[in-house]
């Protein structure tokens, strides 16, 4: 027969995290704890210039004065910041010219993830900058990019090679004092990616980074900075998976995007970090600050598919500073078992004729809680600002929750703001209808979920969309009650 509640529960229990394995690579790890000395040592370890060290110290000072925010609709054991090691790097540090030189164990890890470098290289026009723990170990396609004047490297390298750009823009969109986790990140960020597209250049390929948390007990503090100079275009892809862990892993990244006049940045994320086991134990804490700044006629699109992490706290936002600038946010957030997500966006309209679109799809299963939190803010000078928001929630079973917290602040009478929201449940009738047509329950759920998420999946670059679709299926296997 088809399925019963009991059978489904059993099935769910036997489902182990697909990418739950641990790579044994020797690393150079700092002892646990955080103080000024650790910040200085970290900066020194990374051979940073003095201005960077001072910048970090200032951030650390700010962070010490701050307290962890509690307003999000999430419940968790707060991390002990003295029980985390703030630096961990694979030992074999030198950059490799070819794959043959890369640690075979690392390559094996990627193979098990189904993202072999070989394949990635062959994939039409995808340059991959892999972040394994904290230090970049491989960068490809650099040459092609260099010919166009595009800089795509690790942030550590950028600090050394392009200090003028980093100095000018780092912290310009997400200031050190922005929030507790942004301050922490500013003090101790280990590595991340840097990208600069020169004036009028259209980046010829999708830029992509695979992040991966690997070392026991090391928090990851990624820092990403993308600068699209006037009239340029770039599409940036970010995807993540992490090995299974018993203790909670903290991840507090900061991503800053700067789109100068007439520039466009498309930033896509597929996130699949360890969500914790079926009892809700373990899993990644994902406290991320992502924000983009649009100058005149510029456009920033955030597209994200979030299936992982025990706790997600993330609001990719757009500051629409320039006149006629556009901000977009397309999101699918899936929560299963005991996962909690409080995610959404902020669209801040400062310039005239600014436009923003928000499409958020939340899918909750198991005993998970999924919240959308969004702010649409129209400044008094932002004449003719327009926003359209649509928040749809899909529930699976009777033990999960979906919540929507839309905030609207309009200080200009010419603003047009629309908000639509729906909540639906995958019904037994829908499942039976599919069953009757010869489609089994697993496949039926995948079909229904994909249909529900279509508007957002369509916004992803092709190869990413396929991966995302697969992820949705894996994350929700056997979760209808």
């Amino acid at each position, binding site marked *: *027969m088809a399925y019963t509640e009991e059978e489904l529960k059993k099935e769910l229990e036997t489902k182990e995290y697909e990418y739950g394995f641990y790579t044994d690579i020797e690393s150079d790890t700092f002892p646990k704890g955080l103080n000024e000395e650790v910040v200085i040592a970290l900066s020194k370890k990374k051979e940073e210039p003095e201005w960077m060290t001072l910048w970090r110290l200032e951030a650390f000072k700010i962070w010490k004065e701050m307290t962890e925010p509690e307003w999000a609709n999430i419940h968790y054991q707060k991390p002990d910041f003295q029980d985390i090691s703030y630096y961990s790097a694979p030992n074999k540090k030198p950059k490799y010219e070819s794959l043959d030189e890369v640690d075979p164990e690392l390559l094996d890890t990627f193979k098990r993830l189904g993202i072999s470098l070989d394949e990635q290289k062959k994939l039409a026009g995808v340059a991959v900058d892999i972040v394994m723990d904290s230090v970049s170990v491989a960068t490809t396609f650099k040459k092609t990019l260099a010919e166009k004047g595009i800089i795509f490297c690790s942030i550590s390298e950028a600090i050394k090679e392009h200090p003028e750009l980093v100095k000018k823009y780092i912290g310009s969109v997400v200031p050190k004092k922005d929030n507790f986790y942004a301050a922490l990140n500013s003090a101790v960020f280990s590595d991340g990616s840097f990208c600069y597209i020169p004036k009028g250049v259209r980046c010829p390929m999708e830029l992509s980074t695979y992040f991966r948390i690997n070392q026991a007990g090391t928090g990851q503090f990624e820092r990403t900075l993308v600068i699209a100079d006037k009239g340029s275009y770039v599409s940036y892809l970010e995807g993540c998976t992490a090995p299974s862990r018993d203790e909670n892993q903290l991840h507090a990244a900061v991503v800053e995007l700067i789109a100068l006049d007439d520039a466009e940045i498309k930033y896509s994320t597929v996130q699949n970090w360890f969500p914790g086991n079926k009892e809700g134990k373990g899993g990644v804490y994902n406290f991320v600050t992502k924000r983009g700044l649009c100058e005149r006629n510029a456009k920033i699109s955030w597209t994200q598919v979030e299936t992982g992490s025990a706790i997600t706290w993330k609001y990719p936002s757009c500051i629409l500073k320039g006149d006629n600038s556009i901000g977009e946010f397309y999101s699918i957030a899936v929560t299963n078992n005991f996962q909690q997500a409080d995610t959404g966006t902020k669209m801040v309209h400062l310039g005239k004729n600014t436009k923003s679109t928000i499409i958020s799809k939340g899918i909750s299963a198991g005993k998970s809680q999924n919240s959308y939190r969004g702010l649409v803010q129209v400044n008094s000078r932002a004449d003719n600002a327009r926003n359209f928001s649509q928040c749809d929630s899909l529930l699976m079973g009777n033990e999960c929750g979906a919540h929507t917290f839309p905030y609207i602040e309009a200080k200009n009478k010419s603003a047009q703001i629309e908000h639509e929201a729906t909540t639906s449940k995958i019904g037994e009738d829908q499942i039976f*209808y599919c069953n*009757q*047509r010869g489609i089994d329950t697993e496949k039926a759920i995948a079909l229904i979920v994909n249909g529900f*998420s279509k508007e957002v999946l369509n916004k992803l670059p092709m190869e990413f969309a396929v991966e995302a679709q697969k992820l949705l299926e894996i994350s929700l296997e056997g979760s209808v009650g």
Partner: protein
Amino acid sequence: MLKIKDLHARVEDKEILKGINLEVKPGEVHAIMGPNGSGKSTLASVIAGKEDFEITKGTILFEGEELDEVAPEERAHKGIFLSFQYPVEIPGVSVTNFMKTAINESRKAHGKEDMPASKMLKLIREKSELLDIDRKFLSRSLNEGFSGGEKKRNEIFQMAMLEPKLAILDETDSGLDIDALRIVANGVNKLKSKDNAVILITHYQRLLEYIIPDFVHVIHDGKIVKSGTKELALELEEKGYDWLKKEPVV
């Protein structure tokens, strides 16, 4: 093809089917009629394998095999099709995509490869022409915003695509205007062959003017109280159901 013996079924504590006996052979068209709440739709759901119903007694044999432990999707793979009285909406999933998935899942169950795209397109073209369906309709989300008539026509289109051995049409005529009814009936007639069978579940004699049944059965209170030929349907039209309710069970 289908043999139902002394079938009793209930939902929760309520017994709905109280001893149904029915045999359907290849090439036959059976009409099942009866007043509201007599158990017509329940019978259709039980044959299709809906979980809400519990079979308490009796058996359903399909091509000699007992269906009791067979999952609904497997029954579909064996060639049982149910045209729903109230087809559900699946937002974001196009009719084409849904059909592609259904056909390939069925093929997979029979150890076959996916149907090549060109063949699929040809099949879609052929069947949509047969049922006078606009191709634009096929790219719309399944049943979302469809009118009553469109939903029913879509059910028959799916039946045409899946080419079942046994098609059960549950009140396919309800909510159809006369033109739509004619198109649907026409489609069913064109798909009829000596190898497949149709069970029509209906309130009214109207549909039976277009699809001529070989047998007509009347269900009342969970039992077939009278069986006959198409003349029985006419008699029902004239007299209503009340006279049968009073008659002793045959």
